C-alpha cells in the first residue's frame, strides 16, 4: 500500500507541490533531449544513406570537439579553428569512404557495423595520441556562445535557464531545418533519398554512391562538431563524453533509424522521460536509474511499434 502510494501518488503530489522543480525538470529534460537528438541525427543521416549503423558517431563528437579545442590551444583563432575542424571532418569523411566503406561495399550490415567499431577504436587512439587524454575546457565564449543564465520566477520558486542551453536548442533547430531543406529541396537531397531507398536503383540512374557517402559522413561530422561544442560547454571535452553517445541509441529505436523528425521527437521524449523518471521515481529504488530508464521507455514503445515511432514500416516477404 505504501509502495503504491510512493509510486502513484507522492510523485504527482510533489509535481503539484513544487511546480518550479517540475518546470525545471522538464526544461532540463528538453535540453538533454535536444543533445541526444543531435547525436541521434548523426546516426540517422548515415543509416539512411548507407545502411551503416555508425557506432563511431559518439567518438566523432569527441574527436571533433578535441580537434577544435586542440587547434585553438595551438594558437589558431577560434573561428579559424572552427573552419579548420570542418576541414578535418571532411578529410575524415573522405578517408572513411575511401578506406573503409568502398572496400566493404555490399557486405552484410553487421560487418559494416563492426567496421565502425574499428573506426571508434582508431579515433580513440588517434585522438589521445594527438591531443592527450586530459580533458580540455571548451572554447565556448571565444566562439561567441553565451554563458550565464536567466532566472525565471515560477510559482514561489524559480527556474534556471542556462543561456548555453538556449543556444543549443536554437542551433539544433537550425541544423534540423537545414538538413530538412538539404534532404527535401536540393538535388543532393533527392540523390540521398534515392540512395536510401535502393543502392542499386540509385546507381543505375547515375548517382554516385561515393559522393553521397562522403556528403553524409561529412554532414554527420558537422552534426558531431555541433554536439561536441554544446556538450563540451556544459562540462568539459574529454573521452568520457563518448559514453553519452550511447544515450542516443534508445532515442534511435524510439524514433526509428531512418527518420529525422523521429530522432528529434524521440530525443525529446527520452530526455524528458528519463529526467522525470530519475527525479520523481528514482529515489524509490536508490537513484541512478537514468542509465537504463531511457531503454525501458524505448522498449515499451517498441513493443507496440517494432519499427519505432517514425520508422518505415517493416514489410516481410518470403
Amino acid at each position, binding site marked *: 500500500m505504501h509502495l503504491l502510494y510512493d509510486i502513484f501518488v507522492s510523485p504527482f503530489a510533489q509535481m503539484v507541490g513544487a511546480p518550479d522543480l517540475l518546470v525545471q525538470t522538464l526544461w532540463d529534460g528538453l535540453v538533454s533531449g535536444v543533445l541526444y537528438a543531435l547525436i541521434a541525427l548523426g546516426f540517422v543521416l548515415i543509416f539512411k544513406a548507407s545502411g551503416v549503423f555508425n557506432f563511431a558517431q559518439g567518438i566523432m563528437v569527441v574527436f571533433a570537439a578535441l580537434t577544435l579545442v586542440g587547434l585553438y590551444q595551438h594558437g589558431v583563432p577560434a573561428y579559424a579553428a572552427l573552419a579548420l575542424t570542418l576541414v578535418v571532418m571532411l578529410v575524415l569523411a573522405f578517408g572513411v569512404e575511401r578506406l573503409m566503406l568502398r572496400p566493404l561495399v555490399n557486405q552484410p550490415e553487421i560487418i559494416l557495423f563492426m567496421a565502425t567499431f574499428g573506426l571508434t577504436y582508431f579515433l580513440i587512439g588517434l585522438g589521445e595520441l594527438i591531443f592527450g587524454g586530459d*580533458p580540455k575546457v571548451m572554447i565556448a565564449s571565444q566562439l561567441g556562445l553565451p554563458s550565464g543564465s536567466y532566472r525565471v520566477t515560477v510559482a514561489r520558486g524559480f527556474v534556471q535557464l542556462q543561456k548555453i542551453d538556449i543556444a543549443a536548442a536554437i542551433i539544433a533547430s537550425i541544423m534540423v531545418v537545414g538538413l530538412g531543406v538539404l534532404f527535401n529541396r536540393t538535388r543532393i537531397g533527392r540523390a540521398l533519398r534515392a540512395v536510401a531507398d535502393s543502392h542499386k536503383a540509385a546507381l543505375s540512374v547515375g548517382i554516385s554512391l561515393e559522393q553521397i557517402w562522403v556528403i553524409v559522413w561529412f554532414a554527420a561530422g558537422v552534426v558531431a562538431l555541433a554536439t561536441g561544442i554544446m556538450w563540451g560547454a556544459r562540462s568539459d571535452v574529454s573521452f568520457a563524453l563518448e559514453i553519452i553517445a550511447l544515450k542516443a541509441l534508445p532515442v534511435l529505436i524510439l524514433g526509428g533509424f531512418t527518420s529525422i523528425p523521429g530522432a528529434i521527437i524521440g530525443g525529446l521524449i527520452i530526455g524528458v522521460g528519463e529526467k522525470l523518471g530519475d527525479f520523481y521515481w528514482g529515489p524509490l529504488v536508490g537513484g541512478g536509474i537514468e542509465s537504463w530508464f531511457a531503454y525501458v521507455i524505448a522498449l515499451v514503445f517498441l513493443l507496440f511499434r517494432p519499427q519505432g515511432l517514425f520508422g518505415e514500416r517493416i514489410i516481410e516477404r518470403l
Partner: protein
Amino acid sequence: MRLKRLVLGAAVAGLVGVSVPATQAVAQDSLFVPLFTYRTGPFANSGIPIANGMHDYLAMLNARDGGIGGVKLNIQECETGYNDAKGVECYDSVKGKNPLVVNPYSTGITLALIPKASVDHIPVLSMAYGLSASAVGADFPWIFNPPDTYWDGMSIALKYIAEKEGGFAKLKGKTIGFIFLDVGYGREPIPLLNDFAKDYGFNVKMYPVPPSQMQSQGSVWLSVRRDRPDWMIMWGWGAMNPTAVTEAARTGYPMNHFIGVWWSGSEGDARPAGEAAKGYLSLNFNAVGANYPAIKDIEKYVIAKGQSQTPKDQIGENFYNRGVMNAVVIAEAIRNAQRITHKKVIDGADMRRGLETLQISEQRWKQIGLPEFAAPIHVTCQDHNGHGSVYVQQWTGKGWAKVSGWITPVKEKVIPLLYDAAKDYISKNQPWPKRTEPCDDKTL
C-alpha cells in the same frame, strides 16, 4: 589474394609472438618500482598529474642522487586506464620481476590485489584510497594506506562542518548530502557517515552518480535543489568532479558548503566552472605549490632535461604534488628498508618491513626538501595508516588557499569501526591467512 596471405601470415606471427613470454631483463642491482598509472580513458584528468608527480620525483632521485642508497631505481609505468582487469594484468606482468611495491591508484584494483599480495609477497601501497579496513596491520600485513583512510577523511569533513556550525551538537536536525561516484571507492565512507548521523542526529541524503552518468548530473543536482541539504560532501573522481562543481554552481548551491574529499580537489576540477566555483572546499593532506627545494630539483634535473611528460604549468598543482608525495612515501620506505635490513638491493618482503616502520617526521620532510609539505606520517605494525592530519582548502577562482589548520580525524570513532570492518572482511573471505610476519617495532 596477396593481401589475404599477408594478413594470415600476420595473424599467425601475432599468435606466435604472444606466446613468447614478454619478460624483460631486470638488472639485479636496481630497485624495481612499477607505477600503475592511467593517462587514458575517462579518468585521465585525475590520473595524469598524479602519474607525472610520481614519475618525476623518482626520476629526480635517480638523476640527483643516483637512486636510493646508491642503487638506481627502475621506474616502469603500466597503463591501467582505471580498469580492474587491466590493473590485474599489470600486476601479473610485474609480479615475476621482483617489484618492491605496487601502487594500484584505483580502489577497485586495490581490492582485487589485496588477497594476492600476501601470497606473492608484494606490498600494496594505496595512499589514502583502497580498503579502509586494510589499515589493520594484524590482519593485512601486506597492505598500507597512509596517511588517512576514507573514514578518517569523512570524519574530518564532518568535524569541519561541525566546527562551522558551532559544535557537533548543532548538527542535530541538519541535512548533509553525500554525492559519490557509484563504485567501491565512492561507497567506502558510507558506514562512517551513517554512524555519525545516528550519533549526532543529522539526516543524510545519498546522491549516487554511476560512472556512465558522470558528465550528465543534471537530475542529481535538481534533487539537491529539492532536498536543500545544509552541506554537501563529495567523493568524486575523474570527469565526475568538474561536472559536479559546474552543476553545483549552476544550481546556485552555496559553494562554501560543498566539500570534496582529497580526490576531488584538483585545479582541473574547479577550473572549468570558472568564477562560479569560488568558495568550493576540499580536503587535502599535501601542500600545493612549487616553491619547495625538492620540486625545484625536479624542475632542474628532470623537466629541464626533457625527461618528463609534465607540462610546465602542472608543476606544483595539487595532484602533481599528490604524486610527488606518493613517490616520497615509496622512496622513504625503500630508504627505511635498506636501513633496517642492511641491504642495498632489497625485495618486496624487505620493503614490507620498511613500510611497516615508516616514519616521516616534520624534521624529515624538511630534510628531503619538502618542509611542511604534509603532516608527519607514522606507520606501525598494528596501524598501517597513521590517521594523519588533513587540512581544508578553498578555491579562490585561480588556485587553492588553505583555510583551516591541520585537523585530526575522529580516531576514537574510526578505529573501532576499522577493526569491525577488518573482522567482517576476513569472515567473508575465509580462509584468510593468519599473519606470520614478525613485527619490527620491538627490535627497533
